[in-house]
């Protein structure tokens, strides 16, 4: 339980709010590269502000506050130039840094343009997505986490959820929900719906632990029948501060991304890399991108798949969970730890420091710790994840199943000496 005041501090992401100031120190994916194939600009919303994201003919991306400082028309309907964007209304032109470069209707001798600067950020592509940074300079480097740069077959399922990003993040440090929401509840749905629920999520938790590390929190668990020697405990998987969780198993590696659009909306992405040992695949130009459903036309929630169950929990908690009326138990220690981490890093930013996970050293790849043998389920885990998760909506679902099945057979043949 928190006070309402603490809850407000932890959940408000707009400019000038302590959490807003912290979150502006990180890069966010906010669009896909293919979004710019037909038109060079689009409106995006991030951290409670509207932005125009654009791509020049040479392939450089820029991001600028959507409304022109002149008379507030949308720059998304502007003209993209090699060195910036021009407002469609009166032709004011802005550079990548937001500086006004031209005001065609003003006299040539006027220096008015020098006094006008729009809010602007940085934008770069990585892994098929367009990432932006809208915080203060000097900007940190865009972290090249393993799933975005390793070779393999990628699919990205996405949707927009009507809830605050923090309640989704708290789910990432709540291991016990797996055996109930994805185990017991899934089994119940299977019994009343006449389908076979995946068994790998049903094992009871014997112990859980959380360790802070340089990019967030490592979550560990020992399940019934398992030991400290199993991957789930020995390696675990990380919450990547402040808005992601890295999970994986059997060469399916996934970043679960929760982009805070504003206080009550989150862009939710499952960025998945399939690269099974002994598997073969054709090089992809871009990830396969698809929107996955979570609500029926009548407004009821679709809960017969893993992420649909999570979404049921997050969305039904309300647009912003009222943490002044919650009742945490000892099994919620990870949730309390995450809140502390946010408070600690808000303080760090206030004191002028770099918050947790800031990257300023050039690098090719950042490899994150993540278990390989998930829940001791072996290759069955891959099958159950693709069929029982949001990947069941992937246009390449059958190809993914075949990729992992063929790879498993090839590994078996190799192990048998054939």
């Amino acid at each position, binding site marked *: *339980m*928190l*006070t*309402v*005041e*603490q809850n*407000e501090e932890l959940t408000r992401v707009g400019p000038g709010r302590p959490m807003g100031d912290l979150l502006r120190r990180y890069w966010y994916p906010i669009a896909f590269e293919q979004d710019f194939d037909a038109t060079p600009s689009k409106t995006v919303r991030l951290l409670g502000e509207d932005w125009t994201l654009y791509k020049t003919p040479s392939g450089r991306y820029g991001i600028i506050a959507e409304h022109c400082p002149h008379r507030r028309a949308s720059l998304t309907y502007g003209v993209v130039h090699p060195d910036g964007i021009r407002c469609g209304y009166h032709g004011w032109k802005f550079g990548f840094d937001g500086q006004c470069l031209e005001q065609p209707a003003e006299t040539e001798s006027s220096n008015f343009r020098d006094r006008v600067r729009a809010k602007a950020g940085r934008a770069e592509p990585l892994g098929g997505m367009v990432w932006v940074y809208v915080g203060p300079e000097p900007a940190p480097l865009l972290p090249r986490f393993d799933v975005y740069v390793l070779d393999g077959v990628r699919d990205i399922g996405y949707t927009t959820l009507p809830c605050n990003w923090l309640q989704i993040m708290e789910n990432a440090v709540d291991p016990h929900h797996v055996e109930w929401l994805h185990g017991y509840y899934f089994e119940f749905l299977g019994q009343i719906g006449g389908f076979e629920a995946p068994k790998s999520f049903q094992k009871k938790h014997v112990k859980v632990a959380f360790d802070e590390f340089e990019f967030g929190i490592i979550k560990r668990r020992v399940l019934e029948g398992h030991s400290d020697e199993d991957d789930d405990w020995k390696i675990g998987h990380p919450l990547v501060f402040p808005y992601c969780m890295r999970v994986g198993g059997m060469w399916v590696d996934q970043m679960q991304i929760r982009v805070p659009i504003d206080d009550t909306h989150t862009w939710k992405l499952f960025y998945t890399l399939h690269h099974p040992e002994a598997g073969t695949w054709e090089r992809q130009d871009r990830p396969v991108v698809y929107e996955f459903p979570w609500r029926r036309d009548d407004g009821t929630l679709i809960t017969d798949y893993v992420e649909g169950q999570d979404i049921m929990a997050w969305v039904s908690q309300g647009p912003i969970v009222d943490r*002044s*009326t919650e*009742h*945490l*138990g*000892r099994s*919620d*220690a990870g*949730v*309390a*730890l995450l*809140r*502390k981490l946010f*408070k*600690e890093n808000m*303080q760090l930013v206030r004191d002028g420091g770099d918050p947790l996970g800031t990257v300023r050293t050039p690098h090719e790849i950042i490899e994150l710790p993540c278990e390989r043998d998930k829940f001791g389920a072996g290759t069955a885990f891959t099958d159950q994840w693709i069929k029982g998760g949001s990947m069941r909506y992937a246009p390449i679902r059958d190809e993914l199943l075949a990729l992992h099945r063929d790879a498993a057979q090839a590994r078996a043949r190799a192990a048998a000496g054939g």
Partner: protein
Amino acid sequence: MAETGLPADPHRLPPPGEWFAPDAERHLLDRPRFCPMCGAALERGMVCESWSGAQRNFMTWCAACSWMGDVVRYDRVAISEQHR
């Protein structure tokens, strides 16, 4: 409700008689306000309450000295069999 001595909170508590009202009120009254390590005010720190049975635990983090730990409130000292 309407108990005197509630610390300032910029927002209304749940209405009297509502399920969570007594817990929310006790939270405001009982949560630690000063760090058990250095004595600094915890307003900039973090106090998150959880329960173990009737026992109330306040996971506390001090922004001044970085102390982190549980402050436990109880009215009766008891030792259960499993902890002996």
